């Protein structure tokens, strides 16, 4: 849950500080003012992370009641988090595409192609894992460049381009893998990404570093805003945010550092390596989106592309780069998925992969209409999707029900998005 401020839809009330001429401030720098500002935003249709957090809590309670023996056990929580990794990574890239008001239907199968590239180069050409991973990521970026040029330069609607590529890349995966075949992934590093864990000590060190860093950045920003007389949140809100992050980070670390092996004589502890990878990518992409011109321009193009063009932003370049970034993230997601299954087959990245990822972004709070969304939405929404998949699996629900329930949740998320947008238009938020 990387913090951050600036772009639209910042967390709790983003309200001004007292300064000449700009009223509405005195009220906002108090806790009461911040709370009422936040409620105003929610009423105005900007729900932020609310639906995703509510989803996680409600589903968590539901499955805990229905499967009290298994759901909240450390082993299952670890499985659940690892299940969420590939979805969240794919969704992180898609957030950028959705922010532009575009769609990438091919992202799932791109993750399959890139995973196949990695697996085939390692298995059949004995390439070391780092070159294979790099090659897969480069393949993703090149695919994104191709998609981006078709969408941004030639101006074919992204829906059509990526629908065509959705079919096309599946053919490429099939060709790479061979009809009906499976390419095993045996490299210990790649397999270990989702199947082995860091030591207990390193896990705690990482968690504490993350929390301290977050707190330092937040408090420093608050201090600068205060001393310069800029818009700032009340200190209590900043502190509360830090506490929430600390509880989540330390709580997850505590759970993952408990021995989760079913056989008590066996030791199975620590944070799976994929989790810090997700955290680092989450922080890096959040930084890109919130703290750099590129990120600002992504929001601007998604909000009003003509206004962006007139402001001198190279809209075509922004669009192309977003598709490059999104497909590169798809490649990383494909690698994570291949790691989890220790193999790549012709259907990798097909099926529900893309819909889960788009659903994750939308459930997290990213708008399908462009201009609103954050990288953390991908992680929150990815968790919701993973909880559904995991919980239904524990309940041993019939396959048909699994599809129907997941579909219904996606529809619900999209409805919330559409209604929020209508409400926003009606109340001028």
């Amino acid at each position, binding site marked *: 849950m990387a913090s951050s*401020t*600036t*772009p*639209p839809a910042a967390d709790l009330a*983003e*309200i*001004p500080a007292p*300064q*000449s*001429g*700009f*009223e*509405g*401030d005195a009220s*906002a720098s108090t806790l009461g003012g911040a709370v009422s500002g936040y409620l105003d935003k929610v009423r*105005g249709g900007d729900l932020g992370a609310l639906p995703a957090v509510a989803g996680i809590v409600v589903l968590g309670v539901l499955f805990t009641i229905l499967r009290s023996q298994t759901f909240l056990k450390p082993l299952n929580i670890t499985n659940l988090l690892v299940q969420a990794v590939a979805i969240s990574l794919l969704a992180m890239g898609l957030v950028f595409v959705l922010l532009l008001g575009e769609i990438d239907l091919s992202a799932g199968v791109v993750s399959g192609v890139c995973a196949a590239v990695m697996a085939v180069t390692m298995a059949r050409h004995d390439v070391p894992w780092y070159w294979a991973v790099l090659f897969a990521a480069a393949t993703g970026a090149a695919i994104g460049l191709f998609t981006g040029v078709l969408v941004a330069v030639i101006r074919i609607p992204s829906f059509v381009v990526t629908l065509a590529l959705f079919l096309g890349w599946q053919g490429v995966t099939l060709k790479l893998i061979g009809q009906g075949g499976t390419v095993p992934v045996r490299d210990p590093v790649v397999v270990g990404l989702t199947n082995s864990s860091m030591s207990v000590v390193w896990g705690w060190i990482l968690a504490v570093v993350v929390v301290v860093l977050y707190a330092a950045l937040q408090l420093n920003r608050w201090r*600068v*805003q205060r001393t*310069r007389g*800029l*818009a700032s949140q009340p200190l209590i809100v900043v502190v509360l945010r830090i506490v929430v992050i600390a509880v989540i980070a330390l709580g997850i670390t505590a759970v993952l550092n408990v021995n989760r092996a079913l056989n008590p004589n066996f030791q199975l502890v620590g944070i799976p390596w994929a989790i810090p990878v997700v955290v680092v990518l989450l922080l890096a992409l959040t930084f890109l989106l919130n*703290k*750099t*011109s590129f990120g*600002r*321009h992504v*929001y*601007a193009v*998604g*909000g*009003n592309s*003509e*206004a*962006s*063009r*007139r*402001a*001198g*932003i190279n809209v075509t370049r922004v669009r192309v780069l977003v598709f490059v970034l999104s497909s590169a993230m798809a490649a990383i997601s494909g690698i994570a998925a291949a790691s989890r299954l220790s193999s790549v087959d012709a259907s990798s990245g097909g099926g529900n992969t893309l819909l889960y990822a788009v659903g994750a972004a939308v459930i997290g709070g990213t708008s399908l209409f462009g*201009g*609103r969304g954050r990288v953390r939405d991908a992680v929150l929404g990815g968790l919701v999707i993973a909880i559904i998949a995991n919980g239904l699996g524990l309940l041993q629900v019939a396959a048909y029900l699994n599809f129907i329930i997941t579909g219904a949740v996606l529809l619900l998320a999209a409805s919330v998005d559409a209604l929020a947008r209508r409400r*926003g238009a009606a109340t*001028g*938020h």
Partner: protein
Amino acid sequence: MSALSTRPGEGIPTLELRGVNKSFGAVQVLRDVNLLAYPGKVTALVGDNGAGKSTLIKAIAGIHPIDSGEILFEGQPVSIGGPRDAAALGIEVVYQDLALCDNLDVVQNMFLGRERHNGVILDEVSMEQAARDTLTRLSVRTLKSVRQPVSSLSGGQRQTVAIAKAVLWESKLVILDEPTAALGVAQTRQVLDLVRRLADTGHCVVFISHNMIDVFEVADRVAALYLGRMAADVPITDVDLTRVVELITAGRSGDLGIESATVAEAGV
């Protein structure tokens, strides 16, 4: 033409157009258009729908570069090939459809495309301070916060932000495309006051409007386009409301306007 540009007492015009032509395919939208706009003055650009007002300002803004003719900026011939050229000269256009991003806040919109940085990191502190200073300088008192998203602002407030954005850039020429078109009475008042303040702080302002009351209230000069030609470009004191309406609808009024022969040729 040369007689116009040397009119005594008005100094060097910030913007001067000489014989500007612009066609879209077979349609000639601007024919031999001349225009003068002076620093510290508001020039109203009037004309009926389709007279070429929007094309003219888009030509000045570099969105539709001109086919032929001359553009002089502060007496120097310049070529404007794109929005960046115009911005580099100090030309800012406030469009009718506002050109603001609803999902960004006031500060983010004011610095859109020209963000300030510390290394690669956006310098939010200095941007917010500069935005506040500019709004304060323009005596904008209606904004609740500079960090509220533009989508939550009223029409008048949006227009204010769009104009303040132009001023932020130390622009010399500010072009306003129907800034009061969709506003209520009180908001129109605010915006007209702001337009006046803009000129009083030394900016050259070109102001497109269909509303003659607004024109006579703030303009120092009036330029009337008629079917792509400049019918008249005169101090507002030389004309009255009836004559401006005649210039807009017929291209001619008394001794002002296009020769009747050319009026006929223009296709009426």
